[in-house]
């Protein structure tokens, strides 16, 4: 190995046809509480290539790249750059070795200019910022890669695509040879995607290496030279040529497995249509389309699972159905009521249960007791309400009953709810939401962060509700959970329902393809 490095250095990389690795990751192990995110992963990319890193939610791609980018330190394993072992204690270390990362969430100061953002945190110039000089350098650098940028523009004036360009320039300015891009096309318009790909190819021609994290097969096939697939923290395909691979094969590598059917359930007996959504269209917080003409029907007594990689509109779908976001067009009807921010939510809230994605931020009032949290939806009606006051006996009795029924482990019902473990908090929320026998339930990532026992409890509660006749919309990142709980499955991609099918007998490979963007029949 050292020999060929020497020869390469003397003769230049273009001379030898044997490709060099820009970096190598050996045997990386990264653990978080309760989950092994990277399980002895080997990953490397060659100089001058675009290498895609593919995988579904929770596969470990971002974690692995965060290790490479210096944000996390692995428990085991090593990183080698140019043959030398390197240890990254911070993003600055990674940059010093020529590895820079462009995150999904840009780290740009909105009120500052492009030049100021690019030069932030550098060592030179030390004191006096000669901004006009920096601006010239930025323009020159951008031209080198055929990018257009106005270094004086304020970040908030720029489009998302332009902001991404600034992030890229930031890394290039610091001498990054390897650029890691985390789901870069998630926030771009189709034209911006084309522009980005053009830039990336330009960069590889000039000797840069791009690692491209994505779940979108079409793009991977379009831009990447090679693909590595991760699933559940392990590598299922290392450095496959992207040209040769078929999408079907990649999808299978992404999701293919024995599905663990964790839950035993009776066959569903669907009743009347409870929720009918027609042409739901809305934008996300950035003003980009998040839902495009989504239509579906949900019947009583069935669970409709919504699969898809995070960021394809699932959050906006839940928000639109629970009145937290306005639709730009389309209607959602719950029975005879229209679901819309201006609807009487206190009234509808009795029949519609919402298990929110972020239970701490949304679903609970941390300093109030368990008992007080349980009456969040019912405090304005009897028997809890008594004239102007709240009947504390009724509150207490209600709490004792629910805590017992849903097996919430809490010292007392007066304990502040923030002291409960995640699983018990979730059970409390479920108790509150389901105790009124709702006709419709919208559950978003209900078992995220919960241990096995709590997960089982939650699943049981959902199934019980379904058997009692509730219609449940289950949005989750966990494909196993979706497959074992849902009666029907819809797959979302880029704001549309790209496929819908009964879960029984569903082809997981087809599901994988859909999650990655390919419309498949059946």
């Amino acid at each position, binding site marked *: 190995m050292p020999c060929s490095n020497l020869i390469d250095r003397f003769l230049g990389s273009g001379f030898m046809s044997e490709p060099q690795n820009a970096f190598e990751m050996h045997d990386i192990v990264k653990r978080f509480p309760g989950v092994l995110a990277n399980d002895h992963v080997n990953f490397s990319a060659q100089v001058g290539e675009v290498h895609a890193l593919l995988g579904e939610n929770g596969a470990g791609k971002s974690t692995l790249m965060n290790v490479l980018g210096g944000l996390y330190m692995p428990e085991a394993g090593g990183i080698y750059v140019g043959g030398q072992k390197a240890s990254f204690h911070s993003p600055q270390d990674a940059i010093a070795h020529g590895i820079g990362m462009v995150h999904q969430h840009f*780290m740009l100061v*909105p009120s*500052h200019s492009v030049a100021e953002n690019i030069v*932030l945190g550098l060592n030179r110039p030390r004191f006096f910022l000669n901004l006009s000089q920096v601006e010239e350098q930025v323009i020159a650098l951008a031209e080198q890669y055929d990018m257009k940028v106005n270094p004086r523009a304020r970040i908030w004036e720029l489009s998302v695509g332009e902001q991404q360009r600034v992030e890229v320039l930031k890394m290039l300015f610091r001498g990054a040879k390897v650029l890691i891009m985390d789901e870069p096309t998630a926030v771009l318009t189709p034209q911006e995607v084309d522009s980005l790909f053009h830039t990336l190819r330009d960069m590889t021609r000039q000797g840069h290496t791009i690692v491209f994290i994505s779940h979108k097969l079409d793009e991977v096939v379009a831009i990447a030279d090679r693909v590595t697939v991760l699933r559940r923290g392990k590598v299922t395909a290392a450095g496959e040529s992207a040209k040769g691979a078929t999408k079907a094969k990649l999808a299978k590598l992404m999701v293919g497995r024995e599905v663990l059917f964790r839950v035993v359930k009776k066959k569903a007996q669907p009743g009347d249509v409870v929720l009918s959504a027609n042409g739901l269209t809305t934008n996300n917080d950035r003003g980009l389309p998040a839902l495009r003409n989504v239509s579906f029907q949900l019947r009583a007594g069935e669970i409709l699972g919504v699969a898809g990689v995070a960021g394809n509109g699932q959050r906006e779908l839940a928000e639109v159905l629970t009145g937290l976001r306005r639709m730009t067009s389309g209607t959602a009807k719950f029975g005879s009521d229209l679901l819309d921010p201006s609807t009487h939510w206190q009234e509808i809230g009795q029949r519609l249960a919402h298990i929110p994605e972020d239970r701490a931020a949304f679903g609970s009032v941390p300093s109030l007791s368990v008992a007080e949290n349980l009456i969040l939806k019912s405090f304005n009606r009897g028997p809890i309400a008594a004239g102007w006051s709240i009947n504390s006996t009724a509150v207490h009795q209600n709490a004792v009953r629910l805590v017992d029924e849903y097996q919430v482990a809490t010292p007392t019902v007066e304990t502040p709810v923030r002291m409960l473990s995640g699983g018990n908090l979730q059970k409390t929320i479920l108790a509150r939401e389901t105790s009124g026998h709702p006709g419709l339930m919208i559950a978003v990532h209900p078992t995220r962060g919960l241990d096995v026992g709590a997960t089982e409890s939650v699943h049981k509660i959902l199934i019980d509700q379904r058997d009692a006749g509730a219609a449940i919309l289950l949005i989750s990142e966990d494909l196993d959970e979706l497959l074992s709980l849902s009666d029907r499955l819809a797959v979302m991609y880029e704001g549309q329902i790209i496929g819908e099918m009964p879960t029984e007998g569903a082809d997981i490979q087809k599901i994988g393809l859909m999650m990655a963007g390919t419309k498949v029949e059946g």
Partner: protein
Amino acid sequence: MSNNDLIALAATIIFGALVSGSPLLFATLGEILSERAGVMNLGIEGMMLVGAMGGFAVWFHTGNTFLGLLAGMIFGGLLALLHAFITVSLRADQVVSGLAVTFLGTGLSSILGAPYVGKAVPQPIPVIVPLLDRIELQQLIMVLIGLVLAPAIWYYLNRTRPGLNLRSVGEYPSAADSLGINVYRTRYMYVIFGGLMSGLGGAAMSLVSDPGWVDGKTSGLGWIAVGLVIFASWDPLRGLWVSYFFGLLRRLPLDLQNPALPLISTANNPQLGRIMDMLPYLATIFILILGSREAMRKRMGAPAALGTPYIRGERGL
């Protein structure tokens, strides 16, 4: 009145405004930097008071005005250190901590300053200057310091690397953090700087612009500074103008007692004086209402992370 007399009168009024506004300017400049780093310090009044009292005391015992000003700075800085510790390290609420600083400063200056009430004050050193005839040298120096400091701070803020770091910490601390900038240390530094400047402002009051120490010397000036920072859109150069403008407003009741100006003389219209006293505060409220829309706010320049303690790993800024 002859033209020359009018010009002389105008010059006197203007210089009076500059003198009266300089202590305010110091405090405002200090708080601008502190808030640009993201930390609001409502304790300006307290810091000014300990600066005024401490500075006066040190002058009293040493006879040296410069030492007095320096001492005032240090006392102000010490109080600010307390605020920095509580809000940056302990992540406590900035409003309450600031109020506590004010209480503490008010009380300390009152207790420790009791022996200095009504004592002899520094002798003014006269100097002849065109247009203004005789003025005090100390006051001239103080005004000049302010006139130099404001643009210097502007330059520091907008054209130097430490200034860029400072602004980034106040706008988007986690981005700054991810690029290797120490958010905590930055905030400490500029909160303390704010204290130094407020202390300087207080000492400037008790030693130069309005010599002497009495309990509650600054009579609410520190609170005006809080509003002025907003009024100045967190910009040092605008801070210059607004501070002097308010210096003018404060002096106007005195200046307008000249019966030669019957229409607007507040000797004839004391009510007018009170109404004008309200102006700074109403103006600040007005500015805030104007700035309530996001688009305006962007142009107004409120640091995005102002008031939120920085906790690494937490969502948001």
